[in-house]
């Protein structure tokens, strides 16, 4: 009997002492945290992708609470909805960032860009890029080892076996920018998603002279400047033998797509053209 009693008393005593210590410790080491941080964090998508530029959603929430003006801060995953609910919690003005999406600025598929060498190093674009300019004659193009696919945590990318290029699944892409970071050749760009997901971009990063670029890849931008001349909105700039379309200025008129001699300008999610035009640009279907 006494054994049971002693056991109970000892355990109860130990429990009580531990409780007191815990209570005092909790009081003494309590850290005050703005309760709004938790609320904001809850409103965020909890993907911890780093697309906002902060290490994880918690850090972003802290920054949002701290900042006076949050109009320049954006969660690419949640988009405008999330940001307006965050703004409501904090009583601040949300910015009006347009939704963006990743696009691949290389169209040098196996068919368009013949391989000259056979890469056998570690299967990583970063390793290949540190070694040399790639298997093809174009030293600006995609290595096809899929570092971007590995970096994507939203299952929004896969490697197309036939072309050797990564494909971005529009519905899954949240524009977190992980692939942009991962690509050693800076081939992936975040661009405005555009109305009805329609957008136009130059799918090439080759800065070589026209003849050299064309020899290496059939669909390279040769820097001829035709698109630059035809663009009514001055959205296209020419630099280092390469055209670039400013997505803020582009009005999606598609004139540049028509004049491009190498089909390096891509249009996405447009309805088919009128039959007459379509005959002139049969490659449009392929560009989709």
């Amino acid at each position, binding site marked *: 009997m006494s054994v049971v009693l002693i056991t109970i008393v000892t355990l109860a005593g130990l429990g009580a002492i531990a409780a007191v210590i815990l209570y005092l410790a909790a009081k003494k080491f309590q850290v005050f945290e703005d309760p709004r941080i938790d609320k904001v964090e809850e409103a965020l998508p909890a993907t911890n992708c780093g697309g906002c530029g902060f290490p994880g959603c918690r850090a972003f929430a802290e920054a949002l609470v701290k900042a006076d003006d949050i109009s320049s801060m954006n969660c690419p995953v949640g988009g405008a909805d999330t940001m307006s609910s965050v703004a409501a919690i904090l009583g601040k003005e949300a910015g009006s960032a347009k939704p963006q999406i990743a696009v691949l600025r290389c169209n040098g598929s196996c068919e368009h860009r013949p391989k*000259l*060498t*056979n890469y*056998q190093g*570690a299967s990583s674009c970063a*390793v290949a890029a540190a*070694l040399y300019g790639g*298997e093809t004659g174009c030293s600006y193009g995609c290595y096809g080892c899929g570092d971007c696919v590995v970096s994507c945590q939203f299952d929004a990318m896969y490697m197309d076996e036939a072309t050797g290029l990564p494909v971005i699944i529009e519905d899954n892409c949240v524009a977190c920018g992980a692939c942009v970071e991962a690509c050693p050749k800076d081939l992936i760009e975040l661009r405005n998603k555009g109305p009805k997901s329609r957008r136009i971009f130059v799918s090439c990063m080759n800065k070589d002279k026209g003849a050299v670029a064309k020899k290496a890849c059939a669909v390279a931008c040769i820097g001829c400047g035709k698109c630059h001349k035809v663009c009514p909105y001055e959205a296209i700039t020419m630099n280092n033998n390469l055209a670039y379309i400013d997505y803020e200025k582009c009005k999606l008129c598609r004139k540049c797509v028509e004049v491009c001699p190498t089909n390096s300008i891509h249009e996405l999610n447009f309805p088919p053209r009128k039959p007459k035009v379509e005959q002139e640009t049969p490659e449009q279907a392929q560009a989709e």
Partner: protein
Amino acid sequence: MERLIVSPSPHIHSGDSVKKNMYGVIIALLPALAASLWFFGIGALIVTLTSILACVLFEHLIQRYLLKKPSSVMDGSAAVTGLLLAFNLPTNIPIGLILIGAAVAIGIGKMSFGGLGQNPFNPALVGRVFLLISFPVQMTSWPVPVVSRSSYLDATTGATPLSIIKEGLGTGKPFSELATEIPSYLDLFLGRMGGSAGEIAGIALLIGLIYMLIQKIITWHIPVTVVGSVVIFTGLLNLIDPTSYANPLFHLLTGGLLLGAFFMATDYASSPMSVNGMLLYGIGIGIITVLIRTYGAYPEGISFAILIMNAFTPLIDKYMKPKRFGEKVATQKA
């Protein structure tokens, strides 16, 4: 001309491969297998074959149907696990138990951690210890060595030298008197004693070790430190009190010490990477083995000792780095 291959340097390779190492271990185990067949006959054959086939089959099935990956059983690592598991079992153990042991060794010990090279514990020992704890009776009935035996499950059994000494010392008999009850040291060295299938013949294991060292499959560090620390530790105990502690030679030649030190402790995946780490690991195994043998409940402790030190391997790897170039410094500057 075909396209030129481009890759980062180096452009040549030693030709070493996982297969070479694994089959090398199997070759190194062949003398011990021969000794086992000599002393335990048909039982050794059945146990060894069952164990190898079961391990290879389980690995294949898990990779093909559970992990949906190409099967890599041809690299020989599953066969090594099977062979080592068999060597750690008595030769009269029922086939059902071998299958359970193989399933645990491959399924839990190896594949659940990611397969080749990823296992924190020696898979064969995981299987063996699982069986030892679950089926203590079957796992500790040892057939006595009889040349060219043809009986399997009903083989005559007897105690191992280790358990004779352990029980005898426990009852207070002096070691010198007990030593007369066990086979001579020469017989122990040649393998004429009760025990697990592959652990009995010291000479065969030694030949295997020499082969592995010549083939550069393993380095000397772990085997030597394990054996060395056992000898030193038991030697000290024996010096202090020769009546209640067995002498080092006895410890060296009995039980699974040599099999463990040469083949189990040296398992690549579960042993440390740096030389310093290997030495510490080996000493740890030696000391724990002796502690279990002399003070523990089991007569043999090498399996547990290896598993315990396996658990320390990540820690050892973290703190015991290889000696770096330039650490000894420019002090020698004239």
